[in-house]
């Protein structure tokens, strides 16, 4: 990876570093956290990751199947083993996070699809919490859209899920 980084740096890739984003965060009065004990218990109950990393699909292979549309900006934000994520932006505002993950690295993720009777584009669909809608492609790859703007509705999430190249993703598995 360092070699890749070196090349990147040599090519003056950081010119655009730190362009001021239009992020408008409000000042919050964060409460003094007193939940360390709770998280200790959760940590104890959470098994360490026992996954054959070689069997997990490289996150970089997911990139080309992400959707793109005129009027929107797609900014890739993370690329790790079995995971790739991009921000969906418009006029500088982040509307949603788009992601693909290989459930081989987190098999529990599949359970929610087994309990779901909804499908989209032929794949099982799950809605979790108030911000996430996802599909399970080829019984293994989780494609997820997370709202990051109140105007980005569940219907928008489903529309963007369909814009992924789901067939292409499925071929990575089969």
């Amino acid at each position: 990876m360092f070699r890749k980084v070196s090349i990147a740096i040599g090519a003056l890739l950081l010119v655009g570093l730190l362009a001021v984003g239009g992020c408008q965060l409000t000042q919050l009065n964060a409460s003094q956290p007193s939940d360390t004990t709770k998280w200790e218990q959760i940590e104890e109950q959470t098994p360490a990751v026992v996954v054959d990393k070689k069997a997990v699909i490289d996150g970089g292979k997911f990139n080309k199947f992400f959707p793109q549309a005129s009027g929107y900006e797609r900014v890739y934000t993370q690329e790790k083993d079995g995971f790739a994520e991009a921000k969906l932006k418009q006029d500088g505002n982040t509307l949603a996070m788009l992601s693909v993950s290989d459930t081989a690295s987190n098999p529990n993720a599949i359970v929610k699809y087994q309990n779901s009777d909804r499908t989209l584009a032929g794949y099982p669909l799950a809605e979790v919490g108030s911000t996430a809608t996802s599909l399970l492609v080829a019984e293994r790859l989780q494609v997820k859209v997370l709202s990051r703007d109140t105007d980005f509705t569940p219907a928008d999430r489903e529309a963007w899920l369909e814009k992924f190249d789901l067939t292409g993703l499925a071929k990575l598995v089969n």
Partner: protein
Amino acid sequence: MSKSIYELVNQLPQKNLTVFSLRSLDKVLPGEWENLVGFENTIRQVTGESDAALIEQIGARAIQLYNDKSEGYQRAMWLYQTIDSTGRALGQAALASKVTENVPFLSIINRLTPKPEKAQTIDLCMKLVTEIVAFCKINGIPGDSVGDFVKALGDYSGESLVRMVALVCFDGLVPLGPNFIKQTETVLGNLTPKDLDSNPAFKAIKDAVPGGKTADQLTFIGASFESVKGWMGDFVESKGITPQSVVANLKTFVDVADDKMDYFGAFLDISTNYYEHTGVQTLARRLVERAVAEI
């Protein structure tokens, strides 16, 4: 064992010199940074979710990812912590040596010794290199093209952006003056691998700096600075920032005379850990973003 991610986030101070100094940058970056502390609070803010069971599920996955050393998150944390503790040790050593010389002090500023220009310049560059390497440890190298990677880097906001602006202001402008970019270039141009090997900041993170041999690492450091200096210069110019304006914004909590600018740099060096503080926040945010997408 090193601290878990929830401990690190829960233990972030709400008020200390680091937080005050970062808040002072609000004049330059209005509304950009909030001091987000607390693990659960972070999950709520980043995801916008409020269901307790879901938050615990997201947190559990984030903890699991952080604890897996092969994911690189712990290495990034180590980098943020190490580069800051190096600065603090250096600053405290400078403070101690001044005290033994019996220099009279009216305030803490008078007990400080500015770092030699060369050491300060290397510190600035090492913090920049830390940022680049930590970015890659946390996020990988996103996207398929050079343009994608540039976009990913250019998407800095919140605590990541404030960290870089603090670097420009507190480790560039204040200790080195308005010509800090030119000065850094000059020092870097004359720097030898031997100089680098004797620098505490470099020694502390040498293993993590791309290159292998010191000479190659020096090339990487030079290229890193070269690539970011344009942004730094543009930022300073577009915002009209001067060492005096940075200090003026800090004066609400520390009384400092304008002619003691370099002393003030040393003061910030020993009394703040803004890299570690905002580094914990960046790491937590990215872990949560990944966790909520993977569960």
